[in-house]
C-alpha cells in the first residue's frame, strides 16, 4: 500500500554509489524517484528528471534516485552496475541510492520505475506519480513534476497531487 498524499513519508538512510548515506528532508522539497538501470520507461524519462534536479537545485530542491530492484535476478541493477552507469554518464547531479532490502520501496508503496514522490519540508507527500504524461516525448519536460514543485515552493496546494505512475514493475525479491 502506498503512502497517501499529505501523509508523513517514511525516513530512510540509503547508500549512494560511493557508499555515502542519504536521507530525505533538510530541504524545502525532496523528490524521491524509484528508478533502475534497465527499464525503458526509466531510461526514457531519465534526462528529464536530471534536468529537473539541475533546474531546481538553486531553489533548494533535492532529488534522491533509488534503485530497489532485486539485483540477484536483475544484475543490471546491482550496486556495481549502478556505480558503473553513473561513472559512464560522467556523474549525476543526484545521488543514486541502493535499496538492497527493498524496505524503502515497500514503505513508500512504490510500484514502477520510475515512480516519483515529492515531499515537502516536513516530509509530507505532496505529489506522487509520473514525471509527465508521455515518456516518449521529451518536450513534455517533466511538466507534472515541475508544476508540483512550483506550487509547493510557492506555498500553494499542489493542484494535481496524484497521477498514475507508468513504467516497469519494481522487481521484488521472491
Amino acid at each position, binding site marked *: 500500500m502506498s503512502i497517501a498524499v499529505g501523509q508523513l513519508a517514511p525516513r530512510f538512510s540509503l547508500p549512494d554509489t560511493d557508499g555515502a548515506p542519504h536521507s530525505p528532508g533538510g530541504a524545502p522539497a525532496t523528490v524521491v524517484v524509484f528508478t533502475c538501470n*534497465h527499464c525503458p520507461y526509466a531510461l526514457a524519462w531519465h534526462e528529464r528528471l536530471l534536468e529537473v534536479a539541475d533546474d531546481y537545485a538553486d531553489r533548494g530542491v533535492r532529488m534522491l534516485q533509488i534503485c530497489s530492484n532485486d539485483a540477484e535476478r536483475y544484475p543490471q541493477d546491482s550496486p556495481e552496475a549502478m556505480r558503473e552507469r553513473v561513472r559512464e554518464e560522467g556523474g549525476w547531479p543526484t545521488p543514486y541510492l541502493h535499496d538492497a532490502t527493498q524496505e524503502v520501496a515497500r514503505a513508500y508503496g512504490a510500484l514502477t520505475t520510475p515512480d516519483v514522490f515529492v515531499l515537502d519540508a516536513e516530509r509530507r507527500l505532496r505529489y506522487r506519480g509520473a514525471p509527465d504524461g508521455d515518456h*516518449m516525448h521529451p518536450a513534455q519536460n517533466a511538466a507534472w513534476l515541475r508544476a508540483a514543485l512550483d506550487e509547493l515552493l510557492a506555498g500553494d496546494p499542489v493542484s494535481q497531487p496524484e497521477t498514475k505512475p507508468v513504467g516497469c514493475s519494481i522487481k521484488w525479491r521472491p
Partner: protein
Amino acid sequence: MADACEDVGVTVELLFWDGCPSHPQALAELRGVLAELGLDPEDVRVREVASELDAEAEGFVGSPTIRVDGRDIEPPGVEPTGLTCRVYRLRDGRYSPTPDPAVVREALQRAAAPA
C-alpha cells in the same frame, strides 16, 4: 480477409511478459505496420512468456519481442534471458519500450520479399 502473411509465407510472433506494460502498444504498432504493407494485421501469433524457465527456453530477453520467421527483428546479442521490459533505441536515439516501427516495417518487407 485473405491470410496475407501466410500467402507470402511470413510468420509473425509477438512474445510478451505481462509484468511489462508495453505489449499492447507494441501489438497495435505491429498490426499497423502489417496493415500498411497489405498484410493481415490479425495474423500475429501472440504468446505470453510467464516464467524464467520459459524465458530461457524461448531465448526471451525481454518484453516485447517481435520475431519474423523466427528471427528477432532486433537481434539482442548477448543480452541475458529473463522476465523484464526490453529496452529499444529508436532511430532518433530515444529510449523506448517498443521497437521503432521503421525496424518492424523493414523486417516484414525483407521477409515478404520474393526470394
